[in-house]
């Protein structure tokens, strides 16, 4: 029922000294304050919520990026908008802001936009997703010890 945020912060602080650092570009890919605020929802005796959310996100984001890439190749705007919309939602709530912002831009694209603009945005999205995934994986590693 109550958050164990304080305990986790102390534990994470201890573990952070031993965990491998995230790659340079990944440092600010995730709003850590926002991510850790989700500890408020932690149910006592349940598995670590942040770790569970990271696991779900890493799997889902990779699938969505693949869907977006395939949709852009096939110029399937419906699929592209659906996949970017979904990725935007989960990214925003986990503090993965740059990915959420790029998804917002891609979601607004349509057949009037040049293929090069879409390709450039997609490339940026892939880069930012990779950086965010590395940052989240580092948080996961710290929390699991």
């Amino acid at each position, binding site marked *: 029922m109550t958050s164990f945020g304080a305990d986790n912060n102390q534990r994470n602080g201890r573990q952070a000294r031993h965990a491998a650092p995230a790659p340079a570009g990944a440092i600010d890919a995730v709003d850590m304050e926002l991510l850790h605020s*989700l500890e408020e929802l932690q149910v006592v005796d*349940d598995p670590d919520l942040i770790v569970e959310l990271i696991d779900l996100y890493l799997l889902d984001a990779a699938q969505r990026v693949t869907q977006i890439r395939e949709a852009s190749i096939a110029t399937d705007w419906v699929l592209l908008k659906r996949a970017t919309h979904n990725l935007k*939602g989960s990214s925003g709530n986990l503090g993965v802001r740059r990915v959420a912002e790029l998804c917002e831009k891609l979601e607004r694209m349509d057949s009037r936009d040049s293929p090069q603009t879409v390709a450039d945005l997609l490339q940026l999205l892939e880069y930012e997703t990779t950086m965010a995934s590395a940052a989240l994986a580092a948080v996961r590693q710290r929390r699991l010890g």
Partner: protein
Amino acid sequence: METFRAKLKQETPRRVLVADDDPVMRHLVTTALKQQEYEVVMARDGREAYRILQADSQFRAAIFDMKMPFLEGVDLVRYMKSERRLMRIPIMIISSGQDLKLMTSSFSAGAVAFLPKPFTPDQLQGAIRMLVGSGPSVLWAA
């Protein structure tokens, strides 16, 4: 009146239907409900939620994502409002669009709450409390 209200609340099932095709959002909402001691029935898209609602109406509330494959959240709201056994269940729509049109269409279809993404844990918990507090038993007893 207070005893009557408490009795009605007690008799209302502590089950909430959650439909979202995004596993991260589904897990967040489910955890927040679990924290408030609700049992969650999950659907992975609009069609699955529709099938559940065809067979089961024992829900204290329903929470739907706006954009889902097969059937959107607002379509589910319209369906529930057209069925006598489901029309009293309060519904909240969650959406990643902060568009006023989305909010208006949710409320005109019959939703009682609208939560735009991204949201904080406090906003989610507050919205859930408001949603379950607006249930049929409370309105009926008032």
